[in-house]
C-alpha cells in the first residue's frame, strides 16, 4: 500500500524540478518540500551556527526549518511553495 493507492489517486504526470543539480520529479500541485521528501531527500539546508542539516519539521509554514532558495533569488518555505516545472532549488 502507498498513499496514492490508499485514496485511489491517479495524479497527472510529474514534471521535473532540480535540487542542487539533481533532477527531482514533482506532481502538479505538489509543494517543493513534498517533492524532495518523495524523492528521499530529507535534508536540504545547513544551519548557520552548528552547520547541521535540516529539512521538514512543522510541515505547515511555522518553523522555517525548510527554507530553500528558488531560481536564484527568493528564499521560500519549501513546505508552502508549490513546485513549478523547471524550478531550480538550492539550499538556503
Amino acid at each position, binding site marked *: 500500500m502507498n498513499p496514492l493507492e*490508499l485514496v485511489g489517486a491517479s*495524479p497527472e504526470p510529474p514534471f521535473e524540478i532540480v535540487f542542487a543539480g539533481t533532477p527531482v520529479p514533482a506532481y*502538479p*500541485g505538489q509543494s517543493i518540500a513534498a517533492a524532495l521528501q518523495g524523492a528521499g531527500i*530529507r*535534508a536540504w539546508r545547513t544551519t548557520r551556527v552548528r552547520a*547541521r542539516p535540516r529539512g521538514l519539521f*512543522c510541515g505547515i509554514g511555522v518553523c522555517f526549518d525548510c527554507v530553500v532558495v528558488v531560481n536564484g533569488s527568493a528564499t521560500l518555505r519549501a*513546505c508552502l511553495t508549490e513546485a513549478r516545472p523547471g524550478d531550480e532549488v538550492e539550499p538556503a
Partner: protein
Amino acid sequence: MRPYDLAVVGAGPAGLACAVAAGRAGLRVVLVDGGPRLGGQYYRHAPPSYRATRPGVLHHGWRTFAALAAALPALDVDVRLRHRVWAAETAPDGLRLHCLAGDREETPVTFPAARLVVATGAHDRVLPFPGWDLPGVLTAGGAQALLKGELVLAGRKVVVAGTGPFLLPVAAGLAAAGARVRGVFEAGRTAGLAAHPGILLAHPGKLAEAAGYGLTLAAHRVPYRGRHAVVAAHGNTALTSVTVAKVDAGWGPIPGTERMVPCDTLAVGYGFTPQLELALQLGCATRTDADGGHIVAVDARQATDVPGVYAAGESTGVGGAPLALVEGRIAGLAAAGRPAPARLLRLRARLREFARALHAAYPVRDGWRGWLRDDTVVCRCEEVPYARLREALALGAADARSVKLLARPGMGPCQGRMCGYAVGRLAGSPEGLGHRPIAQPIRLADLARFEGDPT
C-alpha cells in the same frame, strides 16, 4: 474596494462553517486562507489534479467538509486562497486585512470589512530533546499534513510519540498508507480518558473514532505504550534511531528502562498551540486555557472584547474539529446579528466539556526537562543550547522575556513559535515568549508600500 460585511481568516473547520453560516444569513463575506485549498488542518487534502477517487479515507467526517465546500459557490462568499494575512487593524470605518497573495509573487491585497472572524487554528506544540533537530524528526501534525495534503509518507520506519489522542490518527494514517509504524509512545497514560467514563459515554462518536484507530493499529501490529517517551533521537546527518524510556507520572525517565528503537522517522507532538497573532494585533483580550495555553477570550457569541471581532476554532482553545465547526457556525450567525439555536449552544458546551476532559487527561508534565542535556538545542532557529538558557536563568532572568533578551531564544524567523512553550515552562512563564506583532513574514519593501496607502 467596497467593504465586505464579514472577513473570515482561516478556511479550516471553524472558518468554513462560519463563512457558510454568515453567507446563508445573507452577508457578503470574504474567506481568506494562506493555503492553496479549503479545509485547514483537519480537512487538508491532495490537489484536485491527483484525481483521488476515495478522498475521504484519511479523514473522519469528510462528508461534512464536502457539504460545506459545495455550499460556498451559491453564497455571496468571496473565497481567497493563497492569501496570507500579515496584519489586521481597526480603522474608524471598519476593519482592514492586509494580505500577500500568491505563494511566491506576494502581491499585496487589502480587504476592508465591517466585521472579522479570526479562525486561524493552531500549530503543533513541541518539546525539545537531544537530537530533535535531526532531519527525519518532524511534528506529528507535519507528518499528518504531508500525508493528507501531499500523499507522501514522512518515512518508512516511523515512531510516533508525544501526548494526546492526536497520536492515534497520525499513527493509523501512516500505517494504513504503508509505513511501518514501530510504536506509538504516549508520555501520559494510554487510558487517559478512561478516568472519565461518563464523558466517553456522552460522546459515542469519539469513542467510535478512537476504536477505529485502535483497530487499524492492531491490524498493523503497532504497539501503543503509555508512560513511555522518546527521550533522545540519534543519527549523524539523519535520524537512525530513537531512545525510548519508561517515564514516571511526572515524565521523569526511569533509569535502566531506556532502549533503542531503529527508525528513519519520528513524528512527535505534545498537543497544539493556538495561533493568536492577528487577534493580538487587534488588541483582543486573551486568557489561559485548561492546558496552560494562551487563547483568545470570547463570550457566548464567540465575540472578543474588540467590537466587531469574533474568534472561533482552536484560536479560542484547542478542542478539535467538531468543536471548531460548531464555534464557527455560532460566530457566523453572531456576525450576522442572528442568535444561535439553543441546540448549537448545548452542543458547544458538550464539546468544550470533552475538550477540558482531554486537557485534564493529557497534561504536559515537567519531567521532560530531565531529557535535556547541556548541548540540546532548545531554540531551533538560533540554535540556542539548553546550557545558555540555564545561564540566563542563573543570571536572574525571572521570566521568558528576560531569558529571551539574555540567551536569545525565539529571536529567529519562527519568532518563538517552536520553542516558546518550552522556554516559557523553563522560565516559569506560562504565556511563553509573548506577543508577536506580525502574523506572517513580510518583506520590508512590501511593508513600505503600505505606508499611507492601505488599498
